[in-house]
């Protein structure tokens, strides 16, 4: 191939709009046929569900957790006479009272025993029984299964890798704090230069489109100066209020091996900010059709450890929020906290596969049938009875 500047400029690329450029295949932002929205938040680090929604009605809790078991008498918010909400989630009480916030206790993925964050997160996002041969994530497989969809609108937001959205279905990735600011000539030359490297080329093209979208929302709404978690939630809300139907992002800070009281307050504060930003950004009309599901790789030890914290455990908790959920209650079968009730005399016993709950939510939101959910989205899962998590 021969290149010269004159031919390049003559080819008409300069100055034409991004979408019309023959060098760029636009990512398609088609909407799903339904108006329902699903937001998945991965809580990385292993959230201690026993601390967030404290079963203070269980007499064993105080014995197992001398410094982490405070009930309503110590600032936690009573939910139903048995469970009390961590004080740092006070900002979510209005949501709880409106029936837009609920919890499912004592759930887990099929992951057992090695209690590694990285494996635990991989399996949570793969949605499978084991990692053998798995190359995609369950949310991507759901996108592949939604009927009548050719190009989906799903966003993985933020800098963290969202393996649950990886796979053959087209998904957009963005972190709402990047701008390019290049001249049109340089943009075109970048496209040319990266052409020989398909992976680099595709990422560059998507970056251009997303930067353009982001610039629009920034001038309109004015992105908050608050933390990254709020910016991410605001960006998710902006996209979901328009064409997007699926968004996923992650929040960290849950690995509370020591000094849990302080670490947990910080993580929960961010979580509450993110949920409230989502609700506010979506507006009441879209919020009505939204389900937010927050999942973590595992729960933590039932006993407090030697350093006022908790170690990696098994049974954990799922959080759900949104106008579409049947909230205002704590779902799930409570296994108890006596030594014989615990998993390996150590962790909260999982009483149900968390994937079953997510599958039932997907069935309700996206109209997927049980066969698809049990074979394609979560292979090997038995969904069991409907836990009725949606309205």
């Amino acid at each position: 191939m021969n290149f010269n500047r004159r031919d390049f400029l003559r080819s008409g690329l300069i100055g034409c709009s991004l979408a019309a450029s023959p060098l760029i295949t636009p990512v398609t932002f088609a909407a799903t046929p339904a108006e329902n929205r699903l937001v998945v938040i991965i809580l990385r680090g292993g959230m201690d569900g026993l601390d967030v929604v404290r079963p203070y009605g269980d007499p064993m809790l105080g014995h197992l957790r001398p410094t982490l078991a405070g009930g309503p008498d110590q600032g936690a918010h009573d939910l139903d006479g048995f469970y009390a909400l961590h004080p740092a989630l006070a900002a979510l009480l209005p949501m709880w009272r409106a029936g837009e916030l609920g919890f499912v206790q004592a759930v887990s993925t099929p992951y057992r025993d090695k209690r590694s964050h990285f494996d635990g997160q991989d399996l949570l996002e793969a949605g499978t029984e084991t990692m053998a041969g798995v190359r995609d994530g369950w949310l991507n497989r759901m996108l592949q299964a939604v009927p009548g969809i050719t190009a989906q609108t799903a966003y993985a937001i933020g800098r963290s890798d969202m393996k649950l959205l990886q796979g053959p279905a087209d998904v957009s990735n963005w972190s709402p704090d990047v701008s390019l600011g290049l001249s049109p000539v340089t943009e075109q030359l970048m496209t040319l230069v990266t052409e020989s490297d398909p992976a680099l080329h595709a990422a560059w093209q998507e970056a251009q489109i997303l930067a353009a979208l982001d610039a629009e929302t920034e001038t309109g709404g004015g992105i908050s100066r608050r933390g990254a978690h709020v910016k991410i939630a605001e960006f998710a809300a902006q996209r979901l209020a328009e064409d997007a139907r699926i968004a996923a992002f992650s929040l960290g800070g849950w690995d509370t091996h020591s000094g849990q009281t302080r670490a947990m307050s910080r993580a929960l504060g961010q979580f509450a900010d993110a949920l409230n930003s989502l609700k506010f950004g979506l507006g009441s009309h879209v919020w009505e059709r939204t389900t937010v599901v927050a999942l973590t790789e595992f729960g933590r030890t039932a006993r407090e450890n030697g350093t006022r914290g908790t170690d990696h455990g098994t049974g954990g908790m799922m959080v759900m929020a949104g106008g579409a959920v049947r909230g205002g209650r704590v779902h799930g079968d409570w296994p108890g906290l006596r030594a014989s009730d615990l998993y390996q005399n150590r962790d909260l016993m999982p009483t149900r596969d968390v994937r079953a709950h997510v599958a039932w939510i997907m069935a309700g939101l996206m109209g997927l049938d049980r066969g698809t959910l049990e074979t394609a989205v979560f292979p090997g899962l038995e969904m069991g009875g409907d836990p009725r998590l949606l309205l």
Partner: protein
Amino acid sequence: MRSFDPELADLRFGYGLAPDVPPPERVDDMLAGLTGADDMAAQFPIEPFDMFRARMIAVAEANRIRRQKRGTPDAAAARQRRNQLNAIARKDGLRWAGHMLLRQIWTPTAFRERLIAFWADHFTAHGKQGVSRRATSPYIEEAIRPNIAGKFGELLQAAVMHPVMLFYLDQMRSMGPRSVRGKKRQNGLNENLAREVLELHTLGVDGPYAQTDVRQLAELFTGLSFRPRHGFVFRKDFVEPGPETLLGVTHSDTGGTAPIRAALRDLARHPATARHIAHKLAVHFVADIPDPDLVTRLETTYLDTGGDLLALYEALLSHPNAWEPHLQNIKPPQDFMASAMRALAVPEAKLMRFGERKMRRIISRPLTAMGQQWQRPAGPDGWPEEDPHWITPQGIAGRVQWAMNAPEFILRVLPDPRDFVASSLGTRASKVIRFAAASAENRREGIGLVLMSPAFQRR
């Protein structure tokens, strides 16, 4: 048969081509560079942790006065002193970041710096609060840098038993439930370090260990501790009494670190560790999906030599796969930044003239935008190796932003992009890239385009 190529030696096993630093001429040069005098450390010093301790002592002392003399002018003065100490450490931390980059920019033995970064990532650790947040570079300088060319078992001990690692993975306060101290304080075990040693540092997550081994190793580790005034200490009152059995081998108490060192040496010699390290090295230096023959060769060498790292590197560099001319792995952001500055021959005086705010603007903030916050991987497993992790729209956008703006900001006067193509890409300067460099509107964007070309982004 493919074999050594000086250009590839710098591209794949170093930080890219440098206009004024000649590449190695043979594999022996690369290996000799690992054990020779450490000129880079002398030229661009970083405080080792043992000196860094003095800062921790001073902060602890200020905090003690604050507590004991609460409400008095002494306490206020102590508070001010502590804030000052923190500010100085923050500034020094940025200087060390600059020095680490300068070593990568100017070294004639770049393989050495690459290996230091590789092992620092394998043994990821950083401070969590106060002044110790700046202890990462001092940790690497002390625990990793001097140990990259000996036995893996020695490196493992140096890293795992280092105070910064003990802090990072919560070992400091873990005590045997039946230890003298544990009984008194009703405190207990924390199994974080034990788990990561098995899962990440040695056997690997598919390795032949179970929860009981994690527990036993956590009991064995009790006593590993640190005091700012003394450095590493072994606290007998934390030790869980009685023998511990790890992978079928029983280690009895001796009242010291001997059984811990023995257990770490056993782990270092384990075949699962050989496999884990061999695979990781091949992935990091050659390709995301490495040739099985290369991995087997490395694994065999590791086992035959009892984890001799120099022999392992020699096996890597004498394998034909190492010299596959087609560029493969994408450079992670930090390596991209260092190689760009190396190609631009950024002098010490230019990089180090910036104050705190500008250092952040040209180094820390852009790295975060590219997806690799300086010395802060998300967890103890370090940074991912897989290319798709780095080649994301936001990651690439972050690279573009930096490539188009930072070089001019740092150097003020840029080289002619047409010359820069040849000096930075060597024989890999394609027609397309030369065309783009020559067609750019200005030097700034011409340089940026070369830095963003696949031939510069991959190695």
